[in-house]
């Protein structure tokens, strides 16, 4: 079902991928790695441009179809052509490839050993500050010193940038304002090592929480503060397994949600709700984020099988809302796509994009607003059991 279309420009070729979404079309542009959602008529014009029809042929088609004056039809087609060319000429760049000169420190102040999926990791931090960027979310996986390390990561500072090495190889370097990108890359290396998959074998990483029932998984999405992690914690206290919090990897081959075993971030305003299920949170260390005026504690996920990966049953855009006991309704694919894409890393490889779109378009998408925890848990059971 792949429908790539190639078009030649003066200097380079560009491919697009078109998929129907409800009454519109998604058009993915390879060079810019952008997803544009067009009305059907606009998509028809783009297809004609790629089919190498002349502009005047397309203008005529447009004039007759929309009953337009000649000059307006000409302007419309020219504007679409310009837009398509702009997307084709915008080069997609990743942000961690900056070349810098660095010397790896002789001494790392802090060394930590972690055991995940029977794989030992040695992670060396040049300073205590760098350790605080990573360790709190992985502290529950720490083990005592071992001589059987499989992977060695090193993290240090050079000219005001955080440098990340794996087995001595430079993975990337980041400004301090991009700490979240360093943490994302670190998490991705962990995911690749524990699941033994290379970078091009991942479909995407979603800013979501994921739970499983042993057979399938559900992804909870939504803005920060909507209650993704709190809902995940409530569900893992009620018989479900936590697969991942905040960083949810999905593979290309089977489009399954993979376990990411970092701890669950619990914000201060969720503690009261969670204390009855997790008394250990009362004595857990607090981590303060001054700029964001935010305090979190970390909750250990209950999933001990870090090799776990499960098919995704549905996407749920969740919102804890005090004035609503529970309201579940299907949402349009376009509305879901609009919320999903800007918050996710999606593989820019064209074959993977095709798989991503097929996967997404088949997934049911719901909006769930709730304040009644019992009803929420019951509803999640129903979604897993096709019992809505």
């Amino acid at each position, binding site marked *: 079902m792949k429908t790539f279309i190639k078009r030649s420009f003066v200097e380079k070729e560009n491919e697009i991928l078109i998929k129907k979404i409800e009454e519109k079309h998604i058009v993915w542009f390879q060079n*810019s*790695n*952008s*997803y*544009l*959602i*067009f*009305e059907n*008529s*606009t998509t028809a014009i783009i297809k004609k441009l790629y089919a190498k029809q002349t502009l005047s042929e397309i203008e005529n088609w447009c004039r007759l179809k*929309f009953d*337009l004056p000649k000059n*307006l039809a000409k*302007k*419309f087609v020219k*504007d*679409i052509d310009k*837009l398509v060319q702009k997307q084709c000429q915008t080069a*997609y*760049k*990743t*942000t*961690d490839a900056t070349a810098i000169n660095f010397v790896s420190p002789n001494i790392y102040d802090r060394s930590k050993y972690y055991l995940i999926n029977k794989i030992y990791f040695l992670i060396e931090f040049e300073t205590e*500050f760098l350790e*605080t*960027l*990573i*360790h*709190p*979310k992985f502290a529950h996986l720490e083990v005592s010193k071992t001589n059987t390390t499989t992977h060695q990561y090193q993290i240090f500072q050079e000219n005001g940038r955080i440098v990340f090495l794996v087995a001595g190889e430079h993975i990337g370097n980041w400004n301090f304002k991009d*700490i*979240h*990108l360093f*943490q*994302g*890359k670190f*998490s991705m290396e962990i995911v690749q090592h524990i699941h033994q998959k290379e970078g091009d074998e991942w479909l*995407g*990483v979603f*800013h979501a929480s994921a739970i499983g029932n042993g057979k399938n998984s559900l992804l909870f999405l939504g*803005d*920060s*503060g909507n209650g993704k992690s709190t809902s995940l914690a409530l569900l893992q206290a009620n018989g479900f397994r936590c697969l991942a919090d*905040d*960083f949810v990897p999905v593979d290309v081959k089977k489009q399954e949600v993979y376990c990411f075993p970092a701890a669950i971030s619990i*914000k201060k305003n969720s503690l009261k709700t969670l204390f009855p299920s997790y008394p250990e949170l009362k004595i857990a260390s607090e*981590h303060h*984020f*001054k*700029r*964001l005026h*935010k305090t*979190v504690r970390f909750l250990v996920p209950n999933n001990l099988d870090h090799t776990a990966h499960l098919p995704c049953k549905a996407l749920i855009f969740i919102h804890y809302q005090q004035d609503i006991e529970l309201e579940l309704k299907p949402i349009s694919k376009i509305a879901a*796509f*609009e919320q999903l*894409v*800007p918050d*996710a*890393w*999606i593989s820019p490889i064209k074959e993977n994009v095709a798989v991503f779109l097929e996967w997404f378009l088949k997934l049911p998408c719901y909006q769930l607003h709730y304040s009644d925890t019992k009803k929420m848990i019951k509803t999640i059971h129903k979604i897993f059991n096709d019992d809505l």
Partner: protein
Amino acid sequence: MKKKEKNATKKITRKNAIKKIGDYGKYAALTAIGTYLLLNPQKAQAASPGAPGVGF
């Protein structure tokens, strides 16, 4: 108060995703079919801003 600010931010983001191919004056139907959504995924895998250390 904070919630209102957050909602306002979201509306701006949504507005930013909606684009127009061009200005077609009184031809409202053309303006409608020339409206599209532009969505760019993240350029790299990222932790959320609530991850340790972010915001120090």
